[in-house]
């Protein structure tokens, strides 16, 4: 439970020595409660009180990091946890759930490892692999085979601690996820996790079962835990995951850990993985490498984990669609990502060449930007001149979005040697307009 300023004050020395840079301990306590300062600024807190303060300020869902063979840095780590809200609009979702592919064969690992797809200028990839084996030798061999192809973080699956041990010993310096502990093997699993310092999953069908295991394992000194609620059933997992997130955000420490989803066991993997992305999973295991499924899930994950406070904006500039020629039309729109993609997608999908001028409208859609004065004749003219559109085209003709038809007069005044045309209001009508009206 997060402590109030007064509660924190009671744990401070109350000597007002000012060494923390604040005039009183109370002032420092208030800043601590607001998370604006670090506790370490006060040199005089007792060890005991320090522990209590640290516990109270820990995030409601523990941050769990898996490390692969490349060590820290790009692609080498997958993080889950540290989430603070139920709904993304309340703040944002932070750590995108890691997508892991279950290892079926060496070829599938190579294909998944090489997989890369571009979305809105970003290269998206999978995060790691999950592998299962039934004997220590088999596990060691599988790990070796996988490590010959990829350095991505791993999830090792077995109910037998010796099998997991055999896998871990092949991965020096790494932090794979051990999967995992259940009611029957938890003591040995906890001992293994403690020795190797790897995060460990706990498996149970109920919330009480999960909490019971995490408490017992934590008492053995293992804190990096992940919850496996043992279901890929859509209805059951939605209820369980929601309850776990709620409890965690209400500071129920025993379930304040990320969730592992075995979407691979679902009746419909796409449905289950989509739900897991939107509703609270921290790691997701997929059954096999299938590019079209991965593409959809990677894009969905980007979308859901976009910060709602900061909509994705497109860089203002002149964009070439379908290799335009000097006589191709010039279209104008704003740098709000949805608006840009709606327009670009329609024109591109219709196979029509065009120059698309994206104006800096502070990331707003055409109508909103116009209403806010961020998309007016002056700005449009500035973009046309600034991006030197005239040098690229033979026909000085620009198409305005239909929603801002009112700007055409002013724009004519701003750009006297250009012909101003009013296009359709919606992007979807652009191809027809371009074919019929722009010849």
């Amino acid at each position, binding site marked *: 439970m997060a402590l109030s300023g007064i509660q924190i004050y009671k744990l401070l020395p109350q000597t007002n020595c000012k060494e923390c840079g604040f005039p009183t301990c109370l002032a420092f306590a208030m800043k601590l409660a607001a998370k604006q300062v670090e506790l370490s600024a006060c040199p005089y807190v007792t060890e005991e009180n320090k522990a209590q303060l640290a516990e109270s300020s820990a995030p409601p869902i523990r941050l769990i990091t898996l490390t692969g063979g490349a060590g820290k840095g790009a692609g080498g780590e997958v993080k889950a946890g540290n989430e603070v809200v139920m709904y993304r609009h309340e703040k944002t979702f932070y750590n995108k759930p890691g997508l892991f592919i279950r290892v079926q064969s060496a070829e599938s690992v190579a294909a998944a490892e090489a997989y890369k797809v571009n979305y809105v200028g970003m290269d998206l990839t999978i995060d790691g692999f999950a592998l299962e084996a039934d004997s220590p030798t088999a596990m060691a061999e599988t790990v070796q085979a996988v490590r010959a192809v990829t350095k991505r973080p791993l999830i090792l699956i077995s109910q037998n601690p010796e099998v997991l041990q055999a896998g871990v010993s092949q991965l020096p310096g790494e932090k794979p996820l051990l999967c995992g502990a259940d009611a029957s093997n938890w003591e040995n699993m906890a001992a293994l996790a403690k020795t190797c310092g790897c995060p460990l999953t706990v498996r149970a069908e109920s919330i009480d079962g999960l909490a019971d295991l995490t408490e017992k394992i934590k008492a053995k000194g293992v804190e990096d835990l992940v919850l496996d609620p043992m279901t890929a059933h859509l*209805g059951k997992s939605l209820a369980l995951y929601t309850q776990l997130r709620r409890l965690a955000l209400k500071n129920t420490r025993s379930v304040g850990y990320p969730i592992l989803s075995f979407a691979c066991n679902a009746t419909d993997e796409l449905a289950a993985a989509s739900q897991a992305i939107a509703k609270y999973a921290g790691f997701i295991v997929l059954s096999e490498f299938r590019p079209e499924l991965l593409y959809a899930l990677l894009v969905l994950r980007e979308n859901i984990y976009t910060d709602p406070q900061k909509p994705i904006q497109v860089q203002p500039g002149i964009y070439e669609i379908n290799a335009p020629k000097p006589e191709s039309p010039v279209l104008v729109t704003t740098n709000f990502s949805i608006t840009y993609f709606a327009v670009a997608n329609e024109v591109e999908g219709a196979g029509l060449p065009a120059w698309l001028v994206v104006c800096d409208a502070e990331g707003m859609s055409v109508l909103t930007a116009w209403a806010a004065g961020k998309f007016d004749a002056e700005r449009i003219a500035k973009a046309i001149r600034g991006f030197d559109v005239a040098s690229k085209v033979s026909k000085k003709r620009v198409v305005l979005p239909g929603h801002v038809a009112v700007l055409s007069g002013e724009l004519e005044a701003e750009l006297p040697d250009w012909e101003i045309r009013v296009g359709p209001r919606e992007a979807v009508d652009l191809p027809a307009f371009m074919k019929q009206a722009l010849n």
Partner: protein
Amino acid sequence: MPIEIPKEKWTGKVRVVTLGATAAEGGTRTRVVTVGGQACMPFLHFEHPTPHPPVLAIEIKSRPPTDWSPILMETWGEAIRNPATWAAAAEAAGAEMFVLWLTLEDTPEEATQAVRAVLGASGLPLAVFGPGQAEKDNELLVAVAEAAKGERLLLGICEDKNYRTIVATALANGHLVSARSPMDVNLAKQLNILITDMGLPADRIIMDPTTGALGYGIEYGYSVMERLRLSALQGDSMTQFPMLVTVGFEAWKTKEAKVGEGVPASWGDWQQRAIDWEIGTAMTLIEAGADILVLRHPESVKRVKAAITELMTA
């Protein structure tokens, strides 16, 4: 000590809305569709039972589409030649209702003919949407509403530009409206207020908050829907309407669904990707509270329906 599961104590509830009217109610439908009634966020049965699961509509057009993905054209084949055969095929594919989408080329006579054809071909409830240009929508929908008086059709697209005409004809002819606003909680609410102020009973309104497909703004639609539903549960009467989303329209206009050649190999199999795109969009919006999903591909209908069945059991 067992952990107590926290339950939200909502005060509000989504209104129950029924589409379609049987002979006893003054229409000719043999089946009706009822949506709404939720008193918690989607499928949290431990808080409240879900009285009415989301409903799947299949979109059909008054004349064969000219800009649809070849995958859809091939799947529906000859059926798309006229709305009656299309409706029959859609019903066989598992549709629980239809959305008949009219086109700019339709005359009011052709539009009413298409509506009569669909009503004659199937006993399922029907939504009729105009092409989306305010004046044309008015012209077509008024004719349709009069011709199908008493059927409890869902009329769309009813937006700020044309709501007066659409609501007036819905009122006069016993229909419902699909109130469409551009991805904004306040605009959605405002339109609902304007519509109810005209005297249309609140149980004859469905709201369409607009959404984007996967990769094309789904996160905006998703969050607007979550916020609308939360606001409804918190007791705001003007957001307590079931939500309709035009998933097929959005998903199938994306390049991912429409184009099979000259796209990156990492996009995978075209056919599968296109269907996954529709299903992924649908499933995500179901999690946000969608009540009526308008789909285009029979495979999506089958799989989304199975997923809904699984979501309804806990």
